[in-house]
């Protein structure tokens, strides 16, 4: 029987469980963007988009899209009730100043110290870091959503990142398609694993050293 890894939607659903009522949250491009679909209105979550929105709403109905109202992914969006708009300098003051409670973003590699690499592969075309370096440096809580292994099976949760870093010692939690892990000063503590995968098998496809949560390991089942 082949192992059933979490889908993109399941990863987004699990990441959404990190949200707490009343939080201000920035969601990165890719799977993190899907987290918005998992937010229940009664949670009272406010989405920040680093091009200058606090209170980003869903995509507009067809015919209501406006060139002057986009998110950081350059997608047409709407404003939620009570939204505000501001300049890029104000937006990043908000981010760098630690006012945005939670940042959820993707990664190419993470290390057991909480380093993250997600902007550059040497030798390939470099597109730029955008706002990622400011977000990981400024956010009090950085959660990474990622594939646990590369398509060739090589590990992406490492002792040390090999790719150029986006930030050092900033990731607090890793949610992969195989497990959920907390980054602590002692190393990575596994709190959840998908059905059909043992801790030892998870360790075998992870370069970083893993520890079992003292409270036991739950099923990663969004």
């Amino acid at each position: 029987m082949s192992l059933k890894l979490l889908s993109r939607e399941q990863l987004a659903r699990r990441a959404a469980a990190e949200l707490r009522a009343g939080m201000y949250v920035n969601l990165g491009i890719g799977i993190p963007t899907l987290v918005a679909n998992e937010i229940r209105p009664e949670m009272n979550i406010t989405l920040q988009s680093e091009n200058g929105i606090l209170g980003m709403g869903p995509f507009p109905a067809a015919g209501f899209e406006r060139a002057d109202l986009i998110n950081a992914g350059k997608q047409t969006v709407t404003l939620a009730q009570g939204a505000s708009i501001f300049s890029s300098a104000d937006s990043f003051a908000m981010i760098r100043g630690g006012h945005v409670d939670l940042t959820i973003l993707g990664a190419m590699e993470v290390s057991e110290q909480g380093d993250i690499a997600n902007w550059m592969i040497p030798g390939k075309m470099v597109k730029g870091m955008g706002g990622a370096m400011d977000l990981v440096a400024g956010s009090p809580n950085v959660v990474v959503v990622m594939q646990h292994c590369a398509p060739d099976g090589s590990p992406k949760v490492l002792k040390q990142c090999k790719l150029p870093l986006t930030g050092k010692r900033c990731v607090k939690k890793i949610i992969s398609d195989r497990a959920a892990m907390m980054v602590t000063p002692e190393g990575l503590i596994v709190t959840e694993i998908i059905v059909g995968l043992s801790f030892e098998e998870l360790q075998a496809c992870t370069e970083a050293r893993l520890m079992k949560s003292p409270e036991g390991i739950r099923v990663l089942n969004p």
Partner: protein
Amino acid sequence: MSTIRKSKLFESALEAIHDIQDGATLMVGGFGLCGIPEHLIEALRVKGVKDLTCISNNAGVDDFGLGKLLQTGQIRKMISSYVGENKIFEQQFLSGKLQVDLIPQGTLAERIRAGGAGIPAFYTPTGVGTLVAEGKETKIFDGREYVLERALKADFALIKGWRADPAGNLQYNMTAMNFNPMMATAAKVTVAEVEEIVGEGEMNPLAIHTPAIYVKRLLLGRGYEKRIEQRTVQPRA
């Protein structure tokens, strides 16, 4: 610029940029294609000035925004945070024809803000321990490491407003604000193109985003294309 012009209003985009020379450093407002000075960019293409250094968050797409000036080979150096949407950019960069400085978006915004606010440099936590901090001074404050970043200034800032009054007070529309307000403050000459010019005294002083002191030249743009980069809508119910 010793004489004070009676009016800041220019008749054409070409006149508004008449004194931009080869080799000039320009700040160009916008985030993606949102809030870019379409007419002033087109005027630069027509004028044909070259060897430009452009400070702009992005580089447009192949045939719109700053992508137009990449097509014609007028840009020598880009200072940006993200340039992923442009194939011509990629070709020119890989062939060495185009120099590129990639800067974290918040650091870029703050360097421009600092440039306009008379602050030569500042310490930021962004980029510490990464390639961005290499060769730069760092300092520990309250147990955390910060990197020293220098302010940015330019010869000209080309920005896009929504409305202006004749004095040059500006308002922006929605997220077309982005980098425009800081850029307006950080150049020797700021040229603002807008969609509407209202009468004197018709703007609420409290609702002005960029005070007139920063704006040297105004252009009323006509026929904005306002291209959308990623048209996303709700699926029909």
